[in-house]
């Protein structure tokens, strides 16, 4: 069994979980929701084992030059999926809003599919610039931050889907149908904020560890490199979101949109900069 096979198994588990979450919303059967959650958890555990195995494999292939599996596009996309599941499962454990899985799992599944199907999974040794412990701290904090924003994005989509119908909904009874299964808009709005509250300090730490590393490697903690700039753009957007919470007229719909724009900027910062623009972060070049 190698890590590639375990990652494939992970993908299958996430696919199953996603389908089950859809089935839960359609069927309103709580057992289905529980099975879906267990499938997510199983996928997450398999993926954790796979990450550990890939780490071990790097030592098998590179000898003493082995390293944590966080260094190229394939590994980062896989780690992105893992981070999303970690944040999602923690929030599920705390808030038990099972329907959210249907909007979060697809992001993780899509990441896994993309990595498994079209990215190179070779284990290459590190160029000197990447040989630093800062790499691990920087990548982990950034991706957990991104994951918080991914969960917030899923919740925001649910909010926008529901709020339109809720405002038109008349009568005393609760809303029926699929949207009736969603948590109340007030709860969704709160979960959006909670996920961003987890993501924002982590992104802040990610930017700081990146700056510390850059300073250690090149003597400049900030050089307005496109990647750095985009991470700051993301930071500005979520800072705006957090302050919008305290301002009348900015909660609810606008906050949800801000969260969606924030995640779009996050994705551009993560992938767009490497695939579209040029800069110091080389992993997207291949």
């Amino acid at each position, binding site marked *: 069994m190698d890590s590639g096979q375990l990652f494939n198994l992970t993908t299958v588990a996430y696919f199953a979980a996603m389908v089950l979450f859809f089935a839960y919303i359609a069927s309103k059967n709580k057992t289905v929701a529980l099975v879906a959650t267990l499938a997510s958890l199983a996928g997450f555990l398999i993926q954790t084992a796979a990450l550990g195995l890939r780490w071990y494999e790097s030592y098998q292939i590179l000898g003493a030059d082995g390293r944590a599996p966080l260094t190229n596009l394939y590994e980062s996309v896989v780690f992105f999926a893992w981070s999303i599941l970690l944040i999602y499962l923690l929030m599920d454990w705390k808030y038990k809003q099972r329907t959210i899985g249907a909007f979060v799992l697809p992001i993780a599944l899509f990441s896994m599919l993309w990595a498994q199907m079209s990215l190179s999974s070779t284990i290459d040794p590190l160029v000197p610039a990447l*040989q630093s412990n800062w790499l691990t701290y920087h990548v982990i904090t950034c991706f957990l931050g991104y994951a918080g924003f991914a969960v917030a994005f899923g919740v925001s989509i649910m909010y926008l889907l529901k709020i339109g119908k809720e405002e038109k909904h008349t009568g005393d009874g609760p809303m029926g149908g699929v949207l009736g299964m969603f948590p109340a808009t007030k709860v969704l709005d709160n979960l959006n904020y909670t996920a961003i509250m987890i993501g924002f300090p982590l992104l802040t730490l990610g930017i700081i560890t990146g700056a510390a590393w850059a300073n250690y490697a090149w*003597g*400049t*903690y900030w050089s307005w490199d496109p990647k750095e*700039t985009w991470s700051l*753009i993301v930071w*500005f*957007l979520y800072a705006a979101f957090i302050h919008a919470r305290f301002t009348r007229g900015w909660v609810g719909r606008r906050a949800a949109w801000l969260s969606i724009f924030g995640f779009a*900027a996050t994705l551009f910062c993560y992938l767009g*900069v490497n695939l579209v623009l040029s800069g110091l972060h080389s992993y997207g070049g291949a």
Partner: protein
Amino acid sequence: MTEKTKSYTDRTWDFLCSLKLTIVLLLLLALTSIIGTLIQQNAPAADYIREYGQANYELFKKLQFTDMYSSSWFIGILALFSVNLICCSIKNFPRVWKFFKEPLLVAGPGTFKGSTNTAEFSSKDSKQEVADRVSTLLKKEIGKPRLTEKEGKLYLFAQKGIYSRLGPYITHLSILIVMAGAIIGNIWGYKAYVNIVEGSSIDQVLSRNGTVPIDLGFTVRCDDFDVSYYPNSNRPKDYNSDLVILENGQEMARKRIEVNHPLTYKGITFYQSSYGPAGSAFFKVKATENASGETVEVKAQQGQNVPLPNGYSFAVTNFTENDRNFGPAMQMRIKTPDGKNGAPFVVWQNFPQFDVKRGGVFNFALLGFEQPQFTGLQVAKDPGVNIVWLGCFLMVFGSLSAFFFSHKRVWVCLEEDGKKTKVLLAGNAHRNQPGFSLAFEELQEKVETSVKNEFQKKEG
């Protein structure tokens, strides 16, 4: 007239304090920052003209898009952002400070009736006895309570996490500290680079913007430079330079630097950043006089005439690292004492006996060859960097305390009610209300046990 002026100042103040301004500025900063990621920054004029045309280049110049992060308008937005931050803090801080200076020791009836988290019990014991028991409990659960007696009633007040109220202010302050550190670094520091050829030394570096030489005030010598590659690939694994710092000829420091492991001396840091070949290669050549068997070892550069004993000399005229799979080989010729050039011949490093067979006055052996390298160093002096790190630390600390901790307060009022004691309990948290409600329910049960002294009864 005065009234109108005052209202104008007031309006300006309100504008500068407003959260709406904060949001607009944050979004504006996010939006404008994109420009510099799409248009290359600080490139030569010709690059812009080639890519965008003359007219657009002039427009970019006018709008300062080619160096936008130091443009007057971008700095202007940042300055307004700082002013907004400071004004906001000045406006709101006194309200927060009041929680420290004048905690609400005696809660009014509104707190006990109107709040979400309230409870009421009664006890047969005296109010002093109950107060003692509840105090012990609160001390354990929340924090040391403060007792106040007022109009015959006893009031207890306990709180936890009051410092989380400072979180947002610490975060805001940290941003200003980071900016201050950046400004200090810009004014009193510099970014520079220097190339040092192995074995040589420098005492000046070149500024990264403008290539003005900067005196270091000491000398840096590079004793050696090495690159190592991963097995079976041309991917560099490590490259490092042995640097020595000299002052007045005295060795002050020495370190082997590599990427991610710089050397700092007197606030100036040297970072390994690049390398390359410097000048032509050196050949270590051993010449043996065939008649006497006497040998000399010399270093020769390609094309250079190197003297040999008895007026002879030689020159290396060509070199290859691999001659038809025979390994490194040099082509050379001998000059006789009367100035005549002999015919060129080849010496292989791996087959020294070949040249012994050639005959002639001398035979030669190639002992080795060396390509001198230069090491490329980034040089930085940044007296503001520690201030930036202090700001970063406060930012993390401040945002964590702002997001994940809350100021929790609990009030108790004990009042004689005939022979009994009436106990009122209320609690409040300044964020995460649902979480606090759960915690309050637990506390409520414990207080009830304590008030009714059931715990001791069970034991008795």
